[in-house]
């Protein structure tokens, strides 16, 4: 919500910025003699998380700024290393079949916890804290957005849907609710042993244990304080490297190291997270020395790349995000695969990246992005830019030179860089295919509604990883019953293949199955894949130890390894 209006405004201010900034280039932005080897005395890190987080409650949160803060204040059973493989956090080790963490049939997880993990108030973190957290996540009264991610746990879906639907409401009594809650397959066997029981084996379940909705939370604190426990620093008790000392709504959050943290003691003494929604204003703050890190408004990228001082401070991190044009596969003319293929081959992706995105991002011809297991570098090349072949394909489809096509509307949310992308696409299809498409910018929520109702013809689409597993990328979008399948693409062979891959325990076999699945999708081409996004931030040269991963939050770069950051004298 805030993002949409924010993006609209960013787009407006981005039109202005190049001319204005050019006249005010401040060479003082990167001070003299940055990296001198001495530690800064204050060790205060100032960053921006793009807005006021809607909630800081780990079980109830879904938005990116929330996840950024939660990842500093809490640590879960597992976490991701920078190569996106799993590592143990509060758990003693990553559960596998060989170490007994996962049963042979893949349905039971027995996880041993460390016994030296403490909350910021000194109490010890136990398996009960995890059990409570998972059950709270699934409580229908909490209405958590991420609850459905954990429906793989036995009894989870039954508990979460216990109150029924609008047309068929249910009112179970307290005893029934209690028994449904007890039936959820998560149990604290003792203080340091946690057991999960799954309905079906799922090879991506360990990844889910590294996400924010299932970090441990304090039952006693939450029951005493109620649902506002997360916005009051006094009750926002966590087990992560930092603890929150100040939360001024719409202004900033202050964090200091958690003295009881079980891991590496953070070197930073204070983190201030601002809530500036306007990316251009935040970039100005960075140039004024009010921030230590900042995203760069797209329009300023060329200027940054040409400035020798600023160029040194650039950090580029791939994001696990792919953007595409999705077609309604059930409406003419996009029900014809040749037409979809022609459109794919009529779009010059490299020029789009170079000219429209100022070099930020990478062309994509498949769905799973680089940096993730399951990425296939050579997949989809047959649909890459090739104007002569595109013309031939559209003629083969029965529309030589694009004549005879029904009117085509391209719908998109009128925010961010979408208008430019749409205009570029329109020009490409005109030049390379002779096809006229009509652009229809829409208000963001209205656009989402239209796509959801599957009444569109061709629309922008994008997907960002919730966790780095093909399980998160293919079934939702391309499965016949996928919740986010707006193309109405349906391939029963693919559905079977994806079902098999989801339960396959052997990692190599699993990746092979997913590779085959993605190949099927790319061959059928229900969408035209365009590009992968990339993070483009400026970091002051005195900031050291910043470790970025492809799974970082958009709001805060390097959030998973903030305990390693330190500042030199500046």
């Amino acid at each position, binding site marked *: *919500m*805030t993002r*949409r*209006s924010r993006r609209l*405004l960013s787009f407006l*201010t981005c039109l*202005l*910025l190049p001319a204005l900034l050019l*006249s*005010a280039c*401040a060479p*003082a*932005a990167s001070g003299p003699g940055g990296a001198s080897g001495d530690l800064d005395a204050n060790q205060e890190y100032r960053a921006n998380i793009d807005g*006021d987080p*809607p*909630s800081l*409650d780990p079980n*109830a949160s879904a938005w990116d700024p929330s996840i950024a803060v939660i990842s500093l204040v809490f640590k879960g059973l597992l976490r991701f290393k920078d190569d996106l493989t799993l590592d143990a956090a509060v758990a003693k080790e990553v559960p596998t079949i060989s170490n007994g963490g996962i049963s042979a049939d893949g349905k039971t997880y027995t996880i041993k916890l460390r016994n030296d993990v403490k909350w910021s108030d000194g109490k010890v973190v136990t398996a009960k804290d995890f059990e409570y957290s998972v059950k709270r996540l699934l409580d*229908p*009264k909490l*209405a*958590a*957005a991420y*609850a*459905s991610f954990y*429906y793989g746990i036995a009894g989870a*879906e039954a508990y*979460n849907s216990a*109150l029924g*639907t*609008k047309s068929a*409401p249910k009112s179970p009594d307290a005893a029934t609710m209690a028994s449904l809650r007890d039936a959820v397959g998560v149990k604290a066997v003792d203080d340091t042993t946690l057991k999960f029981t799954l309905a079906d084996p799922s090879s991506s379940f360990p990844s889910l244990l590294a996400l924010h909705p299932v970090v441990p939370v304090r039952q006693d604190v939450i029951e005493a304080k109620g*649902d506002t426990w*997360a916005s009051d620093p006094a009750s926002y008790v966590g087990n992560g490297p930092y603890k929150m000392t100040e939360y001024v*709504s*719409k*202004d*900033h959050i202050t964090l200091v190291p958690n003295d009881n943290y079980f891991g590496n003691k953070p070197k930073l003494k204070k983190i201030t997270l*601002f*809530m*500036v*929604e*306007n990316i*251009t*204003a935040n970039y*100005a*703050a960075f*140039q*004024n020395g*009010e921030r230590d890190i900042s995203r760069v408004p797209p329009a300023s990228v060329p200027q940054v790349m040409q400035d020798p001082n600023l160029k040194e401070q650039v950090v580029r991190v791939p994001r696990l995000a792919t953007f595409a044009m999705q077609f309604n596969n059930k409406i003419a003319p996009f029900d014809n695969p040749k037409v979809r293929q022609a459109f794919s081959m009529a779009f010059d992706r490299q020029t789009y990246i170079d000219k429209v995105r100022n070099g930020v991002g990478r062309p994509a011809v498949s769905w799973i992005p680089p940096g993730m297991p399951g990425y296939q570098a050579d997949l989809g090349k047959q649909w890459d830019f090739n104007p002569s072949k595109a013309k031939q394909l559209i003629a083969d489809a029965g529309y030589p030179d694009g004549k005879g096509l029904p009117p085509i509307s391209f719908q998109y949310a009128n925010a961010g860089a979408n208008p430019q992308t749409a205009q570029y696409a329109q020009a490409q299809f005109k030049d390379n295919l002779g096809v006229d498409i009509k652009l229809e910018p829409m*208000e963001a*929520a*209205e656009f*989402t*509604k239209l796509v*959801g109702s599957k009444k569109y013809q061709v629309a922008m689409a994008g*997907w960002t990883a919730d966790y780095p597993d093909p399980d998160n990328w293919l079934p*939702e979008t391309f499965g016949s019953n996928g*919740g*986010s399948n707006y193309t109405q693409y349906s391939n029963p062979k693919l559905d079977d293949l994806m079902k098999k891959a989801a339960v396959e325990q052997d990692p190599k076999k699993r990746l092979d199955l997913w590779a085959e699945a993605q190949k099927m999708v790319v061959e059928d081409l229900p969408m035209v894949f365009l590009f992968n996004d990339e993070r483009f931030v400026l970091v002051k040269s005195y900031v050291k130890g910043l470790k970025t991963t492809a799974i970082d939050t958009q709001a805060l770069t390097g959030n998973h390894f903030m305990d390693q950051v330190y500042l030199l004298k500046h």
Partner: protein
Amino acid sequence: MASYFIRRILWIIPLLLVVSLITFGLMHLVPGGPWDREKALAPAVVDNLNRKYNLDRPLWEQYGLFVWNASHGDLGISYSSQDKNVAEIIMRGFPITATLGLVALAFALIVGLGLGLVSALRQNSWLDYLSLFFATVGASTPNFVVAMVMIIVFSVGLHLLKTGGWGSPDQVIMPAIALGLTPAAFLARITRASVLETLSQDYIRTARAKGLSERLVLTRHIVKNALIPIVTVLGPMAAYLVTGSFIIENVFSIPGIGRIFVQGIGGRDYALIMGAVLFYALIVALANLAVDLIYGVLDPRIRYS
């Protein structure tokens, strides 16, 4: 006069009811809901969310609940701020937005009235043309352009001021100017026109003929009479300034209520939209009442019963 005041205050209640009904209807007519996401939420999750916020009840029941709760001061919980209730969001943000608005209003009044008065008294001089130029530029420059230019010059360029935020007095300067510039320009033009109109009145000629000093003519006759059309404009202008500007609060990252209306609509945050609209309606009603009362002070011909 007192009974007039009380009557006006009481009229606000049916006004707010009508506004709330219209807003509620329009809100639910607009396509899209608060839980629509590009990555669709699971149906059971949507059901839970709708139940949590009473969105699964029939519309008339939802409206009734809203009116009942609102009359007890409970405006509901904002969907985009899951543990903060709407009344709290407004009460926390309004003082900030109002402060900014009042400073901007003061700026607009001083600059606008001053320029307008001077250009009317020195009609067709270089001062008059300068103020015309200022008024045209001020009225046509979008305030976010002014805001960005000031940030670039005073923060990024000269490092004199912080780029945004709220808390210290120097953080009011740039947003107040950006917010108050266009109103200042309007006020300058209106003041000029009104003063010129007053100057041409017979009683001014009489006052001068009587031998009154120019200063007395100004303070005793011109200002009071010229103010009436200005005050008419001031009511809505004050209401607009005091309820905040989305753009200014966005660019300067000010934790006020200027953004809640636009953000509420974008996110289909029904509770926030209703709360914001009702609050604005209340402010506008009060501002108009204040304007009407000030008329009574300025113009003795106007008397309320």
